């Protein structure tokens, strides 16, 4: 059962019965009340559908626009499908000898590997911060949390210089290392560990003589899987959508992720026009994987974690 569908202590009362009880109690005239209860069902649905439409319009547009050839892009009506989809796709994947495919693979690499590493680090830190009382715990926690307040631009150049001193700048590793640290991921892991890992089991295992690492690997990790999945998914999306860090760190276009790659299609400078058709087609294609990921893995999101730290 997903967190979104369960409700503690809820009976399942059909809406109709509620409506009837309400109208019976309020004593309003029957036809008017029936109309009111019908409207009561309809209005929220309509508003939600308007919201859904608003959210989907640009996405729909980009798919239609990617079907227009460069000539049609600025001359035909926005939502009229064009004839150039295959041509655009061909141009896109042939650009600079297949760089778009490289960009997609890079995005997957950074988001996937970065997400996994980040989740591991966050889980370990969250577990320790939640389940151990040690000196400096609060200091460490708040310091890390304060990291959220620093704008990425501020850190980008110093991080680049730092990595250069070690000789690691310019390649994919310079993107992977800084994204592992995620204050938000640590916060979520801590909240989850707090609520999901029973202290008694930890104590019992210690009494039985198990080492801390064994306890972590065999008891804590399995319990924390739902939280870890959430943290991983949030990190994955965040890294996939990250622009500034790879932009500063990477010098070779072949290492760019999709975000930076699309940017370069658009900002060729005054000597060459922006490759709008390519950028639009590229944007459309790049939306697909993440959208699919979000759609299919919705059932695993435990986003109640985020507000879980604030109940009261």
């Amino acid at each position: 059962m997903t967190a979104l569908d369960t409700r503690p202590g809820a009976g399942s009362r059909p809406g109709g019965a509620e409506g009837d009880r309400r109208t019976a109690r309020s004593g309003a005239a029957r036809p008017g009340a029936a109309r009111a209860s019908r409207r009561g069902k309809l209005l929220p649905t309509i508003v939600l559908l308007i919201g859904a439409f608003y959210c989907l319009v640009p996405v729909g547009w980009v798919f239609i626009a990617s079907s227009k050839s460069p000539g049609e892009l600025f001359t035909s009506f926005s939502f009229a499908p064009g004839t150039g989809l295959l041509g655009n796709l061909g141009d896109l994947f042939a650009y600079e000898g297949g760089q778009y495919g490289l960009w997609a693979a890079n995005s997957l690499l950074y988001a996937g590997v970065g997400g996994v590493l980040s989740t591991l680090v966050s889980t370990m830190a969250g577990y320790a911060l939640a389940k151990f009382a040690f000196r400096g715990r609060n200091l460490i926690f708040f310091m890390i949390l304060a990291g959220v307040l620093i704008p990425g631009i501020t850190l980008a150049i110093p991080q680049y210089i730092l990595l250069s001193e070690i000789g690691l700048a310019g390649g994919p590793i310079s993107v992977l290392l800084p994204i592992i640290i995620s204050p938000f991921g640590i916060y979520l892991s801590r909240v989850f560990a707090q609520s999901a890992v029973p202290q008694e089991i930890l104590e019992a295992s210690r009494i039985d003589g198990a080492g801390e690492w064994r306890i972590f690997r065999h008891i804590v990790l399995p319990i924390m899987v739902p939280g870890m999945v959430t943290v991983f998914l949030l990190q994955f999306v965040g890294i996939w959508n990250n622009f500034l860090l790879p932009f500063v760190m990477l010098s070779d276009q072949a290492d760019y992720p999709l975000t930076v790659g699309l940017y370069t299609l658009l900002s060729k400078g005054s000597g060459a026009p922006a490759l709008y058709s390519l950028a639009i087609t590229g944007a459309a294609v790049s939306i697909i994987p993440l959208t699919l990921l979000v759609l299919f893995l919705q059932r695993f999101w435990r986003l109640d974690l985020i507000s879980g730290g604030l109940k009261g």
Partner: protein
Amino acid sequence: MADTALRPEMTHPVTASPAPRPARGRRRSPLAPYLFVAPAVVLFVVFMLIPLGYTIWSSLRAYRIEEGASVLGVRVDRFVGLENYVAVLQDAELLASFGRLGIYGVIAVPLTLGLALLFALLLDVPAVRAKRFARTAIFIPYAVPGITAALLWGFMYLPSTSPFSYVTNALGWGPIPFLEADGLFGSLANIAIWGGVGFNMIIIYTSLRGIPAEIYESARLDGASELQVALRIKVPLVVPALVLTGVFALIGTLQLYGEPNTLRPLTTEITQSWAPLMTIYRDAFLTDDLPSAAASSTILALGTVALSAIVLGVANRRRKEGVS
């Protein structure tokens, strides 16, 4: 960020016991917690603290040409104390950009949270239809990166490709001034709202779902309408989630960069220093004036901390006063 909302005792773990007491009898490894947090702490120090320190150090310096060099001498790094900060605080353009952020924030933050709250409440109405579809559709923008979203909306705004302007043109009203001075703030805010509503909606919705139904069953039995239940009971109970999303929205506003920067080539209304972070970007990357960028960043970070602290402080005090 020392606020009550995040103190351990405020959390309500559902199944586990509260914060651990000292070990009974058996001694466990005192190093264990330190080892577990070690990777995070090391990475934090290396990739956040040290760069932050470098930034502050850099902000106290400046590039100057050596004495007597008239043509193109190589510049040197010199200590100048608080000169950069003084210059930044006196920079009218930078202050104006904060003003623009203010206007932008007043539009974007309430609308994002308001719509998120509205949609979450609507999803929670028992009789609503198409819940799955609406929830998914509204969440989709989260999967679209900021640059792409700004590009898409840019085309929605441009008179020659905008479907909205197409309609108004056909009706004889002329194109909608999305990218003109009148509509600019709304247009920029819209991109952020579009991108942020879904995620925030889910946070508030899951918070709603965590409220036991008994709490408003009795209200419903007493004849309260859905609207009253929503306003009087649900909303106050999700205020903590609203505060959290509000603080994030506030931080996001202060760090506004991607949307105005992507739209800049499409309109003459957006200057290179329209938002503070754009000025910082210009100094750091375009005009190679790293120390100025460092000073502006430090001021921005301090301002963000202060603002977050104020918001959380106010929220906490209100919560303490208005006991449920």
